[in-house]
């Protein structure tokens, strides 16, 4: 049986973070990744493609997101990361097999981000929201490039621990 419009939208919204992240790995620009996700959704909803299953839809969506990412790089004359296709394929496959993150993870991350000191938050904002390279971030905040990589690396580690801790705590406290 073919997926209805509602099924398609529901499935893609469940995979929103994963699809946007897959696009981000190609373009390394969060706003462009969000645009690509919306374009993929639009194409799925308005195109003539028919999807027999959620697996088929997700497979198409990840391929399309990567292709749109490559187009975006060409249009904006940005350099491709050049990561091996086989690695990207494996990442997409892992993402397709992964369970939806759900709203709880996003909320947990938002709460964890609130706890990040302002200086560290500025680092995250410059790198991920404003889309600067680590070299540009280093120049803006006046520290060495290695220090930026080390700080970001520590921040990612602590964020992951914080999110996992919150999710575990929420799981414990759920009735």
């Amino acid at each position, binding site marked *: 049986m073919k997926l209805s419009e509602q099924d398609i939208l529901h499935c893609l919204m469940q995979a929103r*973070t994963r699809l946007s992240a897959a696009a981000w790995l190609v373009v390394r620009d969060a706003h462009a990744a969000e645009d690509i996700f919306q374009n993929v959704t639009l194409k799925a909803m308005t195109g003539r493609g028919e999807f027999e299953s959620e697996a088929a839809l997700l497979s198409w969506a990840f391929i399309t997101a990567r292709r749109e990412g490559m187009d975006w790089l060409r249009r904006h004359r940005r350099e491709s990361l050049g990561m091996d296709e086989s690695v990207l394929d494996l*990442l997409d496959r892992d993402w397709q097999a992964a369970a939806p993150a759900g709203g709880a993870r996003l909320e947990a991350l938002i709460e964890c981000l609130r706890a990040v000191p302002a200086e560290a938050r500025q680092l995250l904002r410059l790198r*991920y*929201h404003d889309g600067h390279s680590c070299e540009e971030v280093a120049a803006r905040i006046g520290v060495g490039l290695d220090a930026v990589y080390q700080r970001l690396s520590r921040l*990612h580690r602590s964020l992951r621990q914080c999110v996992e801790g919150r999710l575990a705590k929420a799981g414990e406290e759920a009735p």
Partner: protein
Amino acid sequence: MKTDAPLPERLLRLLDGRVTAEERHQLEQELRTDPQARAALRTLAEEAVLFSDAERTAAARGEDPTIVPFPRPTPRIWPWAAAALVILAIGVAALWSRPSGGRELARVIRVTGTSGVFGARGAAEQPLPAGVRLRAGDMIETRSCDAWVELELRDGSHLTVAGHSALRLLESSPAAARVNLLRGNLWHSPAAQAGSAPLVVQTPTSVVEAGQAQFDLQATAVETILRVNQGRAQVRHPLQSDPVEVAGGFQASIELSAPAPPVATPQPAPVSTWQCDLDEGTAVILGRRLPSGTFGTNRLGAVPLLWPLPNRPPVLLHAVSVSPFQTVGRPLELRAETRVRFHGRTLRDKTVRFGFSTQRMRGVFAGKFEVDVPPARLGPAGDPWTVDLPVSAFRPLHPELSSSPAGLEVTDIYALTVIDDAGLEIHRIEVVVP
């Protein structure tokens, strides 16, 4: 790069291209063979987009995340924790059921045809009702040719989004309102009072900025056409820093493949007649080219499409459609005495519906006009026919917009069969004034 550096640090360097070929090879090999390494990269990418999403959400809510104090440890109080979880769940549900939080940027004031809105966080509201308030990140999609959505911006100016268009509202400031026209057509009418905030419209190939200007835009992935009817607007190619000013009565075409500064040219005068042989230069919206065969003419065969209808299942159509403006580069204006001739054939007996869509001259969508011609009037199936119709024979589908096509511009002209594929093909279209 230190080989003993933590994996996230090495991945960050890889994403910045700050690794040697050897280091890249090693990291890629690690990613190929170690699911944990891939999980780390996936998490890093997810955190990047979620962080940006959280920043956008905070900005839309009017929060300044940097002033949020570092939380202090709090005692574990079970009832409060349970209540907080319930509130969180309600909050998440509310976020997903409404387009987004934050400052309202526009209000939907009129809707025709089939349209939908996707909230910044993915909530969908279909069909799009009048009265919906829109915020940064919300996206409107019009699903059919006759769909039409009119928005009122905060400064009182109006945006009209035509059929088959997608428009996204962007973060705006008191200094400028911003939207992203992903595809389709848009008209802007400035507020009555002077001094309203400029509007910035991004399209795939251009950035347009205008204050007190009445203009329209046609955007595809590769080209944008800006027509300024009153006032002045500035436009630039995304790869150019210097904008070009386009004054009232002028237009500019910005092609992605030509990153030179666009040139403003006078808008062409309308024509009242048009003979279309469907040659290679014809702007075909719907249809597939058929071999010329025994007729020795160009032929366009009907292609299937689903016609979305508000609150009803869609209808399958088989249609041929062409755009006069995109074919000749000049508006085609209808007069009261204009006649439209279609040359074509059907392979099976079936009523053929002929029609055209219109807009006001240099203005907004003005409705569709259609007429059904039964097979008895077309002659034996398989034989070529000519259908000669006065424009007065076409009934208005949106009489509230315009009851007569006289004085309107044709945006597309079409022929179709409903549900069944009758093998419709069109060989020539003429718009004449006797």
